[in-house]
């Protein structure tokens, strides 16, 4: 229970469904001081009080579990290392994979609980298939697609059939004070929302060149390649305009030479995606290429594709090119379905 409206209503719904529910708030900050001052994000002291109050209203026991060490090594350090390696990580996805549905789930199971209930907007029915939420704008199936069969079998997502508006209404109806608490959008461990500043503090300044992809000419400089992400346009501070006068975008980051390569929008277009460590939960792992839809970043477009699994790699042939595909993000394969698009599997984009 993060202290937000979703997990509060999820807990209430789990109780209403007849489960014996215990509320758990995760303490994720190593330095409690950052709890107090972090007005945003999802792990402030105030959030923990909101969560406790919600648990009291629902009438369930409530505990704070200290996951700060695990969170730091598996999510925060990983986040920094991924940027340092020229990739663009998704920490929420990582937190689901390593903390909520791993460290927390394992501890819970050891203590005698059967499952972890969260307020994620996704559907997981008796067929065991993970589907998009009815609320497409709030759908979080993308950040849950990393979960394995074993993890999904011990997960309950009570909110998948409700829109965010309905969740808020229900919270108000149930007397939960968090009903109109604003959503958190930021990365919870970067309280001020300044990702660049956060990375600069950990990785230090590392000046290098910004290079034009077509000419190979140095067109600017940067103070750390980790500050860029593929597809980025703003904040490039190029010394020279492009010969064609059109805007340039980050095409790639090369940590080895500490170079940021830029070029025109068309050069961002990608039709083939390779990804590693595939997880397949939407039925049998396919042995032949399959037709499906893929999503390449959170809230990103969905494109038809042919997906092939080969050992530890996943290959996707996109039907139409997509811009801004960044290594480190997940590719999630969906099968469209009138009962809610089904997550087939996912993998981490490598190129």
């Amino acid at each position, binding site marked *: 229970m993060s202290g937000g409206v979703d997990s509060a209503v999820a807990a209430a719904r789990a109780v209403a469904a007849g489960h014996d529910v*215990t509320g758990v708030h995760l*303490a994720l900050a190593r330095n*409690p001081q950052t709890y107090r001052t972090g007005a945003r994000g999802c792990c402030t002291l105030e959030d923990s009080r909101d969560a406790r109050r919600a648990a009291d209203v629902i009438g369930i026991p409530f505990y*704070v579990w*200290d996951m700060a060490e695990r969170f730091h090594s598996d999510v925060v350090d990983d986040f920094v290392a991924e940027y340092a390696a020229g990739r663009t990580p998704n920490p929420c996805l990582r937190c689901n994979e390593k903390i909520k549905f*791993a460290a927390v789930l*394992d501890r819970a199971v*050891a*203590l005698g609980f059967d499952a972890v209930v969260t307020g994620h907007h996704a559907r997981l029915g008796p067929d065991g298939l993970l589907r998009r939420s009815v609320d497409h704008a709030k759908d979080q199936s993308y950040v849950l697609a990393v979960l394995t069969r074993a993890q999904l079998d011990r997960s309950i997502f009570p909110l998948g059939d409700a829109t965010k508006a309905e969740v808020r209404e229900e919270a108000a109806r149930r007397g939960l004070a968090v009903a109109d608490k604003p959503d958190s959008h930021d990365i919870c461990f970067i309280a001020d929302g300044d990702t660049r500043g956060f990375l600069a503090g950990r990785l230090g300044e590392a000046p290098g060149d910004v290079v034009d992809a077509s000419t190979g000419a140095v067109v600017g400089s940067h103070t750390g390649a980790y500050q860029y992400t593929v597809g980025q346009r703003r904040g490039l501070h190029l010394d020279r305009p492009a010969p064609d006068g059109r805007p340039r975008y980050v095409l790639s980051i090369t940590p080895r030479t500490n170079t940021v390569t830029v070029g025109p929008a068309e050069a961002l277009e990608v039709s083939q995606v390779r990804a590693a460590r595939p997880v397949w939960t939407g039925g049998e792992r396919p042995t032949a290429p399959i037709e499906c839809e893929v999503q390449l970043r959170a809230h990103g477009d969905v494109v038809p594709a042919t997906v092939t699994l080969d050992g530890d790699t996943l290959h996707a042939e996109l039907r139409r090119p997509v811009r801004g595909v960044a290594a480190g993000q997940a590719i999630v394969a969906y099968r469209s379905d009138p009962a809610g698009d089904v997550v087939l599997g996912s993998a981490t984009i490598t190129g």
Partner: protein
Amino acid sequence: MAYLDHAATTPMLDEALEAYVATAREVGNASSLHAAGRRARRRVEESRERVAAALGARPSEVVFTGGGTESDNLAVKGVFWARRGVVPARARVVSSAVEHHAVLDAVDWLAAHEGAEVGWLPVDAAGRLDPERLRAELAAHADRVALVTAMWANNEVGTVQPVAELAAVAAGHGVPFHTDAIQAVGQVPVDFAASGVSALTVTGHKLGGPAGVGALLLARDVAATPLLHGGGQERDVRSGTLDTAGVVAFAVAVEAAVKGQQEYAARVSALRDDLVRRVREAVPEVIFNGDPTDRLPGNAHFSFPGCEGDALLLLLDAQGIACSTGSACSAGVAQPSHVLLAMGADHDRARSSLRFTLGHTSTPADVDALIAALPAAVERARRAASLRSPR
């Protein structure tokens, strides 16, 4: 439900509750001059006399407060300021490593904000203070010491301190000695005058009275600078309209707890001994913490090797058993107990601790319930703790 957390708070005694309700129906501010005020004042002053008589103090030595935390702060900061105000060099506070946070944090605050220097007295493996250490401390620094503060009995591990001996050492150097006797009153004999202490903290909700009412017994010759300024209701040391009903109920509870102390201690310590024996039988690896003999009658404190106290608490709570890890929380996250650490325990042992405290409503059925639930809880908590090593 088996309530095994009487050291956190214990149910109000019927007679205290009745006195509370009866008084709360009456109007009157004890500072007012009219009849209603006079009646309230009479209730307060009678209560003061009752508390004084029960605890071996003079009525004028009883300062009513808003509870234990306030009394501790008033004693520590108030006496520090008053003594340093007279002699600026007196800026040293001597305290024990196992104090409750109400004392510990007040001392730390003086160090951080008032330039106080602190002499921490260590404890042995049983949590006991050694009067020789105080003797050495005062032999070295007596003229710079503003006060000594050391609790009568420890709230976590239940160890009872040699308070009279410690107070005598301080008195020998003319240094005021404060003791937090919150866990002691009603559990062991406590006599203010006979103990030789200069200031003593007592609170209502640990002895069958209401929460939010307590007292600081403060010897007439010990000055304390007020923390709360205003009407000066309590000897000009403490301001604020007195909670007449609370004070009355507090006095009734103190009197009853002190009067019944011997009988209570005999009954509850027998129950506690039974609990300890059966916990050891059920979980042979447990470590029993605290002094085996100089100990509060209702306190049983253990470390469960290979478990986290937090996990045990959750599992026992789910079985209707209320107990405590005894340690403070920081941002909701349990910290390893400073008491256990001061006793020489390592972090793992400190984190594996659980406190069971019995009180006036405890029955053998409470112990039975604990023993029935404990083995399965320990097994599960062990499984959970074994996951802690990073994968």
